[in-house]
């Protein structure tokens, strides 16, 4: 009986492993797995003896998490390639402890730079001190952490609150005769949700806008569709959909279509989204939506800039660098914008 149990365990492990190998072996740029094994590392380029190349260890969240992350990962891989003189290794995990393990491994491997998008803000002091002791320079991107700024060289982040403010500012500029808003929130408590909700809440209060419905759809298109559907079913009057990401805006639009409510430029309902997915910008181009706010995933050029400066021994001005982020208006967007900024 014990033997049978053991056998079954072995076989299932093997099946599982084969399954994982199946995905890992694929040559698609961003396909990795997030299964049982902790923070899988993969060498993007063979290590060279010469030492000419700059060795970089990149710790990121799982690229499957969202379109944003996929674009972010693609961008990093494109910049830190061999052709640009880098020897980059990647580790992906959505869990802090696995990320820390990966960081320790990179320090052992004596990388020159450690690029980090931390899963959690806390718990990084120890490993960053190790890095400092080992002479590894740390650059944070996308997410900041609760650690002494002396422990890292720079931090390149998006300002979610600013994204929200840009969008609300745009909405204010539309001079609608009335403001009756359906507000679709992201996962409650996430940085993006807080920043994007905060701006709207404040302005709505100041200017007396009506929030018809304020509900979390947890970044989920289906839930957004149900929430808007519910508002329509209850005969609520509204003329703005403020969705905190593109997926939710898409779900909301699906509900509008079902109810034959027109939306887009010069139509009954103003549709706003965030993240600048390519397909979302195309909706803007088709004038089905009105506004899309960018959350810039392309940090690699900023990072490369800093590494270049550090290599040359130049000083870096501000430690925290906030990226430029745009907001696109359907009436002014061009095909070029879609190609350049769509993720």
């Amino acid at each position: 009986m014990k033997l049978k149990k053991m056998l079954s365990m072995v076989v299932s492990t093997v099946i599982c492993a084969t399954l994982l190998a199946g995905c890992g072996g694929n040559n698609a740029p961003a396909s990795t797995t997030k299964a049982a094994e902790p923070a899988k590392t993969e060498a993007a380029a063979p290590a060279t003896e010469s030492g000419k190349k700059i060795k970089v260890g990149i710790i990121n969240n799982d690229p499957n998490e969202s379109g944003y992350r996929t674009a972010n990962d693609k961008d990093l891989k494109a910049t830190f390639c061999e052709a640009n003189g880098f020897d980059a290794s990647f580790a992906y995990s959505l869990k802090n402890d696995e990320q820390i393990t990966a960081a320790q491994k990179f320090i052992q491997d004596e990388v020159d730079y450690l690029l980090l998008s931390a899963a959690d803000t806390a718990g990084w002091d120890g490993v960053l001190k190790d890095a400092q002791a080992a002479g590894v320079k740390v650059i944070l991107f996308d997410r900041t952490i609760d650690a002494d700024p002396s422990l890292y060289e720079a931090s390149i982040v998006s300002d979610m609150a600013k994204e929200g403010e840009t969008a609300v500012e745009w909405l204010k500029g539309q001079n609608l005769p009335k403001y009756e808003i359906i507000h679709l929130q992201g996962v409650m408590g996430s940085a993006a949700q807080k920043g994007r909700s905060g701006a709207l809440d404040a302005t709505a209060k100041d200017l007396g806008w009506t929030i018809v419905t304020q509900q979390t759809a947890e970044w989920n298109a289906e839930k957004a569709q149900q929430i808007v559907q519910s508002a329509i079913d209850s005969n609520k009057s509204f003329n703005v959909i403020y969705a905190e990401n593109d997926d939710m805006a898409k779900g909301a639009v699906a509900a509008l279509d079902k109810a034959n409510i027109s939306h887009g430029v010069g139509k009954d309902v103003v549709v706003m989204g965030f993240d600048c997915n390519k397909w979302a910008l195309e909706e803007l181009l088709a004038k089905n939506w009105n506004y899309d706010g960018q959350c810039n995933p392309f940090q690699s050029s900023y990072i490369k800039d800093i590494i270049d400066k550090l290599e040359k021994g130049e000083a870096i001005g501000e430690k925290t660098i906030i990226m430029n982020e745009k907001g696109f208006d359907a009436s002014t967007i061009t095909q070029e914008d879609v190609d350049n900024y769509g993720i």
Partner: protein
Amino acid sequence: MSGKLDPKGGGSVFSRVLRNQIFIPFAALLLLALFNLIADPSFFAINLKMNSAGSYILSGNLISIIDNGSELAILAIGMTLVTASSKGQDISVGAAIAISGSVLLRVLCGNDTRPETIQAPIIVAFLVSAVAAMCFGAFNGVLVAYFRIQPMVATLILFTAGRSIAAWINNNELPIVPGEEFTYFGGYIPGCPLPTPFLIAILCFVLTWAMLKFTNIGLYSQSVGINEKTSRLNGLNPELIKLTTYIILGLCVAVTGLIKVSRLSTINYSVIAKDIEMDAILAVALGGNSLSGGKFNMAASILGAYVIQFLTTTLYKFDVQATALPAYKAVVVIVLVVMSAPVVREKISRLTKKIRSPKRTAENQA
């Protein structure tokens, strides 16, 4: 039907209704309906409106409920069978929906993420995705039936890896299916005022009814779930039966995947059908079915699924604070699940019997 042998016969219609499994989800539905009726009768309004495609459709909260609850109801069918036969639940259905939806998109869109026209007939794409989903169901089934791994542990593998596999199938792209036809499955067929997901669900219910009526899957899966040794001695093959139920669940997953993907013509691997496995399990539990396997009542599970959707829609309708939403849902769910627990049901029926018994003795004496 058993009236002749049941000495109490018609005298205890009330307590028999109470003891019936379907009573709890039904009562929950009535309670929710009553609450809405008191709070705002317009909840039940149904209108005939024109949609953007130019055909007349019914709309209203009730229509939204049967529309959005359909996926869950279809999943509950498979989940009920799996629970009955393998004494455990498949927690990978959400991930499996992502996979099957991803396969569907891959076949429909080919290598192009933004094709002008669909690259394969929808029926072919659906069949391919159904085969894929059934294969993954079979994978779970083999682990559970032949390797005797606990269902939750066995399906944990796909639960963890499924969404990555789904992303991999489409090279992590998010293809969009072109054309109107594909949106019919998650929307409306022109000229038909009822939402298609509900029609699909009805079709599934009819097929399930036929399956339970014209095959022995019900008897066999219950028998295996209750006593595997006895089942084997009576000529059943318990492993095969468990495997079959997992494959049936796979088919349910494929149908659900079709509806989900069709609703938006695209997919988001990380959030599509998120947490739906928990709702499907909850539907089975709300139907008063034991989660440790054995006897089941399919109609009660299906009704349970719609109760969950009724609750969700009600909460949306009343604009419950976003942060408080899960708490409200949890409270209602706890009450419902406790009410539908066999122990509690027995207590209730005993209590009502006690209240009624003096009356009955009086009747007997008269």
